[in-house]
């Protein structure tokens, strides 16, 4: 390491001697992509903890049948908040807004995003959205109880605080749009000399594809939220069946956004996995072109399948035919990615460090979630399992097992770069195994319950489901233990761990040429664009 220069002293999270602002203002008004990324990360993790605790309470309630612990109204509000917070405040911003913000510019050799002030503004929108969402819990006639899908006509009739919640969703949507817009422009305009599209790290490719979904799909969510608001407040009657309104059209609008949104959640995580696997295999990524292309293909084809959430809704059989077909089409690019990741491991030189552990966990959990997605995509079988715990299991596997583990992998991969310190590897591995065990014990029984007909969003259930619900609740405790261990270990590591070297894993992308922790100004000269997956001459330090 450089002896004349102490990287800790000039870390980007330390006060900047050259800049004017200081203290809190230097953070919340910061236009530095790294600080904004860190701000996002901390808020997202806070929201994640809050919503997982809600999940834990849900499971505690469901441990035994009967009216225990929560009143029906409380339960309904509980899963609504759990879903709304998890979706709109956690997984949609998760990887792009935090690690995307920090590392996308660095990956392409830029010192910031194209519109840094807009970036700060988008963080503020996130804060406002979060505050409004919280407001909706404590004001008006109680927390929203519609489920995160806000289906009409119920969402128009319920007296709970839905109006405030949908405005929060609207604002969060715009926060997401601005992030996507910023990334697209950044990737087009700020690549370092020689950083051609074919040298773009796959993480950047995945954020590029995500950006397009954010820009083109999220406005539909915006208008949907506004319409609910208008229906409730102005009584427009656009979805009111008594006046000829069609509740199914609401569902179309909702899913036109919310299906593509699941790819907003998963694509960046897939990008993280595509970065980690080659680094720890010390072998070029297998089929770079196909992985990059499949991100775009998922983004595009993912916009065509929304009505697979509506097979039982009463829409036309023709639509069922078309959307079921398209749903299967979108599974193919995901399959390509999984196989290419596996082939990257093949004949590599693998070091099972924590980031790789989490990445492999991602592949396992995402595969289970994705393959059960095929059961849902097939029309005949979806009729049986729609709106049952099978769906709940499916999406927890893909969201938590996929995006969640992808996020954890990113945290273990990049924490040393961001904070310049290393966490404890053994504890990280322990937490990983606890999490994997917990998740499977928690969510796998849900598949079985779903097949047996247990409907979702039930605060009480028939006694026949009791044993599996009990097992599933135990799982949530293992999971909680794993998560607490993981967060604690990361916190300890980033705070007090031994100093990390510049390139602890031996990555070949540009951020690993920078000192750890990251500095205020990353590149003083335009960097030379590297081959991102060429490990000749690049070795892990120490």
């Amino acid at each position, binding site marked *: 390491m450089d002896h004349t220069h102490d990287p800790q002293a000039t870390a980007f999270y330390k006060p900047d001697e050259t800049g004017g602002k200081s203290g809190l203002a230097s953070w919340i008004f910061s236009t530095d992509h790294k600080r904004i990324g860190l701000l996002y990360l901390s808020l997202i993790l806070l929201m994640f903890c809050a919503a997982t605790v809600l999940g834990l309470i849900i499971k505690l309630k469901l441990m035994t049948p009967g009216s225990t612990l929560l009143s029906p109204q409380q339960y309904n509000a509980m899963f609504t908040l759990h879903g709304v917070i998890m979706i709109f405040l956690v997984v949609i911003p998760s990887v792009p807004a935090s690690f995307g913000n920090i590392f996308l510019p660095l990956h392409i050799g830029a010192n910031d995003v194209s519109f840094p002030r807009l970036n700060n503004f988008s963080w503020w929108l996130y804060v406002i959205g979060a505050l409004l969402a919280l407001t909706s819990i404590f004001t008006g006639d109680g927390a929203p109880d519609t489920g995160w899908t806000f*289906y009409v006509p119920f969402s128009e009739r319920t*007296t709970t605080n839905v109006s405030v919640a949908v405005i929060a969703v609207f604002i969060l949507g715009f926060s997401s749009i601005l992030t996507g817009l910023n990334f697209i422009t950044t990737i087009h305009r700020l690549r370092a000399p020689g950083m051609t599209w074919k040298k773009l790290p796959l993480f950047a490719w995945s954020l590029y594809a995500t950006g397009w979904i954010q820009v083109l799909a999220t406005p539909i969510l915006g208008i949907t939220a506004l319409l609910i608001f208008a229906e409730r407040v102005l009584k427009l009657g656009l979805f009111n069946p008594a006046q000829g309104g069609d509740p199914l059209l609401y569902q179309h609008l909702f899913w036109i956004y919310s299906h593509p949104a699941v790819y907003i959640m998963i694509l960046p995580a897939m990008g993280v996995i595509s970065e980690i696997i080659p680094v720890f295999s010390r072998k070029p990524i*297998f089929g770079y072109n196909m992985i990059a292309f499949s991100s775009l293909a998922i983004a595009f084809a993912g916009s065509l399948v929304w009505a697979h959430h509506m097979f*039982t809704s009463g829409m036309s059989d023709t639509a069922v035919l078309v959307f079921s077909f398209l749903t299967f089409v979108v599974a193919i690019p995901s399959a390509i990615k999984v196989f290419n990741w596996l082939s990257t491991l093949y004949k590599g030189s693998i070091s099972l460090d924590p980031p790789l552990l989490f990445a492999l966990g991602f592949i396992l959990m995402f595969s289970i979630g994705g393959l059960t997605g095929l059961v849902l995509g097939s029309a005949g079988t979806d*009729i049986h399992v729609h*709106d049952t715990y099978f769906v709940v299991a499916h999406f927890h596997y893909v969201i938590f097992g996929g995006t969640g583990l992808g996020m954890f992998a990113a945290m273990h991969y990049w924490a040393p770069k961001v904070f310049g310190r290393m966490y404890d590897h053994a504890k990280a591995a322990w937490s990983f195994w606890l999490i994997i065990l917990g998740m499977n014990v928690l969510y796998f029984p849900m598949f079985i319950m779903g097949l047996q007909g247990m409907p979702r969003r039930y605060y*009480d259930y028939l006694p026949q489901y009791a044993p599996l619900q009990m097992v599933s609740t135990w799982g949530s405790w293992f999971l909680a233990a794993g998560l607490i261990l993981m967060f604690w270990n990361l916190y300890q590591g980033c705070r007090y761990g031994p100093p990390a070297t510049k390139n602890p894993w031996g990555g070949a992308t540009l951020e690993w040429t920078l000192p750890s922790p990251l500095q205020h100004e990353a590149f003083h000269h335009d960097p030379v664009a590297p081959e991102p997956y060429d490990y000749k001459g690049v070795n892990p330090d120490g």
Partner: protein
Amino acid sequence: MEPKLVNAVQAVDNTFLFIFGVSALLLVGITAAMIWFVIRYSRKRNPNPATFHGNLLAEVIWIVVPTLLVMGMFYSGWHSYRALREAPPDAMLVKLTARMWSWDFEYENGKHSSVLVVPVGKPVKLALTSADVLHGFFAPAFRIKIDTVPGMTTYGWFRADKPGEFVVFCSVYCGLQHAKMITSIKAVSQEEYERFLAEKGSGLGHPGKALLDSKGCLSCHTLDGTPSMGPSLKDVWGREAVLVTPDKKEKKLKYDAASLKMMIMGPRTGVVKGFEPMMPAYQGQITEDELTLMLDFLERGDSSVDGPEAGRAVADAQGCLGCHSTDGSDIAGPSFKGLFGGKGLAKDGAKVDAAYVEAVLKDPAGRIGKPTSMPAYPGLSDAERGVLIKFLESLGGTPHTAPAGSPADVPGAHDGTAPGKGHGGERQ
């Protein structure tokens, strides 16, 4: 494909097996490969990684093979979906209205029940709709699930191949008591089914009868078959009468909805032979809705004479009991038990009396003075409102108005605590 021969449940299960089978193989393969690579190519064992960037053939294979597999899954899924959708032509039709948080099944002969009773082996086609928000009819045993949408009719069909009781869930989240919106399908023998259809309901009163009373019909007509000032109304439906027309000709008239309406509302085309022309024409005094109820009663009769029980029937039919229990427990609204005569929820602290109930039924939020999930019931007829109020009174807090047998014991009371009990009151 001959839809009649397809067993839909079997078709769906085959698709399940196919997709699960392929998935399990793939999952085991992927996991095994992952573990094997991590062990075999660990840095200790394999310090020098290979350097290849790809392999065209391999990539083509794993584009083509998954494509074929998913197309197979798609086809299989679509095939079983069709089996679920195409009802055989000989299916019997049952209409279903879902509402917060109970079900109302209507059979071809007009009988209603809150549990679906079907004959074994006979295909049943369902025509579903909803009175308020979205619900979902989900019968896991038959692999069917159809959402009920207000303002729209959706369809589905199933066939119970063996007798038994099969649970029905509400699958679409519909608010507070979504989890309690459970009933069942009872598959019975053909004879038993016919007996069920013919049954006159389990002692529950009929609002139409109350109307006959309140409109004064019963002062001239009896219900027991003996003629009075006018002919008895017992079994009037379908009876053939002889009318004497103004020009003294005799003509035959078979009583159905149209001819009874003519007789009640006028203008009459003649006088029933053997009676004086003394019945007033009720045009303008009986509303269309009331008439429907009365005709409904005349058509199918009702043995119960008990006032509050007619109210219970209305409360059940209108879905009140989905939100208000009769046993003191809270569902969405306050329990009806002890409600009447006590202090209401209204902002102004008004007592619950007939006028109050009437006002709440017309405009719940307005009367109570705050937003509420209770829908307004502007469509209730005066008579229905009347019997409802009687019913509430019978459950009221002031003991002397309560009838001997507590109505909470009547079968079909939604007590809101027993999931899957699955036998709400059948009514006619």
